């Protein structure tokens, strides 16, 4: 079991003829992802890495029965691509693209109201169910199979955390990179809910950063709704107010969104927060031990 994607998920790559998309299509296929179609308007009939290309998502979905897509379209056109995936009735759309204008995402969210599609991202590394399926750019070798669900606002911290867990003999069901933008499709609580319902996920790791209050909301949700243990890390303790730290959403504005507030909220909810990025793995191990499920989650490193 896992969340959102597995070995049977049929996937469309939107913008497949672009350079980065072609590169990652190869990587995703090599990981075992069932990529059944690509979309680039005007390029129907071509193939990329053996994958047939269609002019529209609707055509691609109809022909192949795909239920998910991953988007590598330039920022100017990416909001349109998300809405195209939503309109075609896909279950899941994952948008990797960075630098989509915030007001475009406001429109997208409005458009998605009442529709069934789940959006992950934008500005995210994607999602990966260990050994089965990856949509996005997470390096395939960073995570091993296991029972921790990982949700993160940052790409490289997802890799770093997954790698530390792997080295500690702790595997992952699914990693979800929700992205570094202020307005996005899936937030911590959405992902935590899915992990909470997944039988194979015994514990969760959430990696947050400065800006907004999604981590505080997640802390309150965890306290009230789940018995599964959760560990956390928050990046940006030293970030100065008013400065954007790389991600569009990573900014302390009006005194809100500081790492200190988030850590306090998580601690208050009984969640252990790693002191430094180097201690994420150890913090998860400690959390699992405290909950008495370490033995169920540990597999000796090969």
């Amino acid at each position, binding site marked *: 079991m896992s969340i959102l994607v597995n070995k049977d998920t049929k996937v469309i790559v939107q913008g497949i003829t672009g350079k980065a998309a072609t590169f990652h299509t190869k990587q995703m296929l090599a990981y075992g992802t069932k990529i059944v179609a690509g979309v680039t308007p005007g390029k129907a009939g071509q193939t990329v890495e053996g994958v047939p290309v269609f002019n529209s998502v609707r055509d691609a979905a109809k022909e192949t029965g795909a239920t998910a897509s991953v988007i590598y379209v330039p920022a100017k056109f990416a909001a349109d691509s998300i809405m195209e995936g939503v309109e075609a009735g896909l279950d899941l759309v994952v948008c990797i693209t960075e630098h989509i204008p*915030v007001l475009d995402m406001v429109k997208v969210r409005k458009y998605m109201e009442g529709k069934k599609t789940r959006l992950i991202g934008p500005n995210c590394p994607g999602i990966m169910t260990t050994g089965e399926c990856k949509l996005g750019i997470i390096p395939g070798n*960073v995570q091993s199979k296991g029972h921790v669900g990982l949700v993160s606002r940052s790409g490289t911290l997802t890799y770093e955390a997954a790698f530390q867990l792997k080295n500690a003999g702790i595997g992952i069901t699914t990693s979800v990179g929700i992205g570094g933008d202020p307005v996005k499709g899936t937030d911590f609580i959405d992902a935590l809910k899915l992990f909470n319902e997944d039988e194979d996920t015994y514990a969760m790791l959430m990696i947050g950063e400065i800006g907004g209050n999604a981590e505080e909301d997640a802390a309150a949700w965890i306290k009230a709704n789940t018995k599964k243990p959760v560990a956390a890390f928050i990046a940006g303790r030293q970030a100065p107010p008013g400065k954007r730290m*790389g991600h569009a959403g990573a900014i302390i504005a*009006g005194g809100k969104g500081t790492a200190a507030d988030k850590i306090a909220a998580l601690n208050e909810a009984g969640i252990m927060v790693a002191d*430094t990025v180097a201690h994420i793995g150890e913090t998860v191990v400690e959390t699992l031990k405290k909950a008495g499920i370490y033995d169920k989650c540990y597999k000796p490193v090969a």
Partner: protein
Amino acid sequence: MNIHEHQSKEILRAFGVNVPRGKAAFSVDEAIAAAKELNAPVTVVKAQIHAGGRGKAGGVKIAKTIDEVKTYATELLGKVLVTHQTGPSGKEVRRLLIEEGSKIKKEFYLSFVVDRQTAKVVMMASTEGGVEIEKVAAETPEKIFKEYIDPAVGLMPFQASRMAYALNFPPAAVRKAAAMMGQLYNVLIGKDCSQVEINPLVLTEDDDVIALDAKLNFDDSALFRHPDVVEMRDKTEEDPKELTAAAADLNYVNLGGNVACMVNGAGLAMATVDILKHYGGNPANFLDVGGDSDPQKIATAFKIMLDGGQAKGIFVNIFGGINKCDQVAEGIVEAAKIISDDGKSIPVPVVVLLEGTNVERGREILKNTPIANVIMAPTMEGGAKEIVRLVNADN
């Protein structure tokens, strides 16, 4: 991106918003000419810097005569203002806004921002104008009113008038206030602002409604749609290192300390700054080199960190996913060639942690091409401790 108050007001004026008459001045003579042209009983001389809190710091002066305008303009131009937003080193005043004074009866706060959770623009207002809204929010949240705006239809007239009534505008001014709210929402949408803040919005003694101060922030991702806004950029207001970095497609924020770091990915870069501080270092910068590891780009990154003697040590923390460790290693070798006279040294200690894709080849490159001062870190914790130790031992 930020712009000056006088520029914000030009944009507001173009959208029909009532702002005081005024003109920017870059010299005392220009200030005097602008004041003469205004011919107002009271003239306000306002320092233009990209930071709030100017009033408290002495950056806003009220002049009753042209002579006073001259005195204040002379005093302010070239002065370094230190406000709660500038940091201790302050900002030099290079331009002024010369504006007619308003007869203020009451001050309000009004702003528009995108709310992350609802994915909607929210209009926020308070009767506590002219003060820091953060303080109002913390101490008396019941004094802040909010209206969430449906992007499909925009700010509805009933929402605007409901807000005007909530703020207790007198009957003669309700419609003016509501109209201004609609215009300000149009500014946010029309110019892709991340924030439109009017503090204070004033009610005058003759029941006029004026945007007395204006702060616009723009969504960097949408600037491609607004070349007119890009034109307004004042580079003298920005950190020179941050400008150089932006031109090289590097995500860099100067933090003022002496332990530098170069990292791939924004999250890991933030976390690296944190761990340096955790082990007693004084972080010099946040630096995300991004997903590619072009050696030239890495060399530029080194130059920026070292410029002006700021970095006394550098921690390179790379988790190779899309980035390849061997390319980063080549970048460090390349940087040494560009930076040093002998082509194989870097003037400060560099601790390198490579992990992930092609890590063995990366380590080999650095082993085979010895660069003075470069050492490999065994772990992230070890690397962070080591660079802090080396920098602190040197000072």
